[in-house]
């Protein structure tokens, strides 16, 4: 999507129901034809209890039961999955960046990182991770904050903050519940002088991270619509969310068993 739209000639977009629609509304890009996509599979054995696609630019949420393990597949590579966690029974207890960092004494999220709440308690634990490190410093993009970074001309862009607000609304939550978040598959190094920024990612199509719920956790994800920084290679692609019960019978999930209604259907899905 170009950053400015000066003419009212309709553009043809794919719709959620699989058709096409001519529209003058500037919407976020759907990933380019021919993008390499690797749909992956669960990182852990167990009975699949949920297997859903998150469309590019779209929000998603689900409750992951205590002991269940969520695998997030970076289907197209370097697609930031902005993520917030809440105690499902008490959403006022939610993910806390500073508590997560202070308890582990490190700024980055890796295998073994305990994702802690604002009360200091474990919400989830990273049990497997296929990239060097995950980010929880950079926070989310949003319409207003994008104007600071890129200019007022991008105010019309959809952002993760807007996705979070939409998904929070569906769960009875609101703006007060949106705090600093995780960014799966995003790379935000902090240099010696404190300089930091979102730089080229370390992920690739099919790379995965797996997190185990330490209590019943509401997981909220924004599949980042950001089109102004390299977090998604300027090509937003799907994410796949697979939840397994490791105590249940079954094998690693293979095909995409269920899709969100709002998801576009990729032609080259496994």
């Amino acid at each position, binding site marked *: 999507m170009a950053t400015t739209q000066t003419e009212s000639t309709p553009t043809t977009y794919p719709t959620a129901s699989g058709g096409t629609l001519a529209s003058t509304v500037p919407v976020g890009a759907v990933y380019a034809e021919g993008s390499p996509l690797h749909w992956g599979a669960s990182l852990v054995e167990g009975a699949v209890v949920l297997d859903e696609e998150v469309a590019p630019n779209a929000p998603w949420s689900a409750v992951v039961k205590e002991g269940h393990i969520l695998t997030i597949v970076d289907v197209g590579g370097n697609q930031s999955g902005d993520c917030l966690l809440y105690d499902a029974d008490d959403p006022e207890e939610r993910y806390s960046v*500073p508590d997560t960092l202070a308890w582990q*004494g490190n700024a980055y999220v890796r295998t073994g990182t305990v994702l802690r709440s604002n009360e200091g308690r474990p919400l989830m634990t990273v049990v497997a991770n296929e990239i060097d490190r995950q980010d929880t410093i950079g926070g989310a993009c949003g319409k207003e904050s994008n104007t600071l970074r890129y200019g007022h001309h991008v105010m019309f862009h959809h952002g993760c903050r807007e996705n979070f607000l939409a998904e929070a609304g569906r769960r009875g939550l609101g703006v007060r519940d949106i705090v600093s978040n995780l960014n799966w598959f995003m790379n935000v190094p902090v240099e010696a002088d404190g300089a930091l*920024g979102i730089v080229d990612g370390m992920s690739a199509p099919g790379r995965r991270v797996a997190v185990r719920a330490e209590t019943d956790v509401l997981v909220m994800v924004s599949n980042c619509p950001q089109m102004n920084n390299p977090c998604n290679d300027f090509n937003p692609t799907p994410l796949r969310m697979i939840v397994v019960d490791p105590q249940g019978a079954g094998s690693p999930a293979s095909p995409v068993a269920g899709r969100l209604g709002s998801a576009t259907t990729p032609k080259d899905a496994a």
Partner: protein
Amino acid sequence: MTTAEEPTATAPHDQDPTGQPSGDVTAQDVTGRLSAGVRDLHQTDSVRSAQDDARAQGGQASEWMPYLPASGSPHCPPGVDPATLVWAETVAPGGYTHKVLARGTRLRFDDPTGDACAHLLLFNALEPAERINVADTQKIPWQAYLGESHPLLSGDGRVLAVITGDSSGRHDAFCGTTTDAWNERKYGDARPHGPSPSGRGLFLKAAAKHGLSRRDLPPSLSFFQGVRVEADGALAWRGSAGPGTHVELVAEMPLLVLVANVAHPLDPRPGYVVGPLRVHAWRSAATGPDDPRFTATPELHRAYLNTVDYCEARGL
């Protein structure tokens, strides 16, 4: 209870309704304070004598107190006309404070002993759903470490405040403040009225006084105790720059300010060591278009344009 004979003998924290110090005092201390000799100095056998006794206790000073009016502060910052002060207070170790400030107010924190740690939350006083966003505060200026000219940004693309002076350079935007779970593990106690209160516990009390609750508490900043990120991501404690440093902010919007003066989460000392924190605020002006800071960077310029846009529409 504070008595005329023991003006500063009690802990600075809240006490339980029995009047007994509930902090780290020994049974012997308690016995001493409740001894018949001290008690006999207070005549409270009637309402009138109780009134006289209470009134006789007024007018004293302690190390940690608000100065009212603010112009009477014994610690007015250099170069500031005391008549312009709107807030002057020394926050106790393990204490907290809060204030609503007008746009354009200057806010200064002083660390006289080198052991203060000012944990800070800022909200748009008119719409507290707009509040400090630590991720944006680090990401948008491309800089994780707080210092001179660093904007403190909301999640709504506006400048809540900007750092206008910093003689410390030891601050932290990574670790937030302490939780009860953290302090119970580290010190064995996290009660707000105990010997090692958590920052979150104090923020909750300050927030409640403005109708806010734990949903409204995002990650916070802290001043005067530094942390650096090493090459492998490790968070390295740098501690204080020593006694006598200060940090100054200017409120670019109407602000609700919550402050907790508690030990930093990564403070490696086995004890809970915090010094007093001095707070002063005085009437001044928000950063205007003629100030070099207004256009210092493209990001800051647009943040100021957004802020002025909001304030002008609001009639501020």
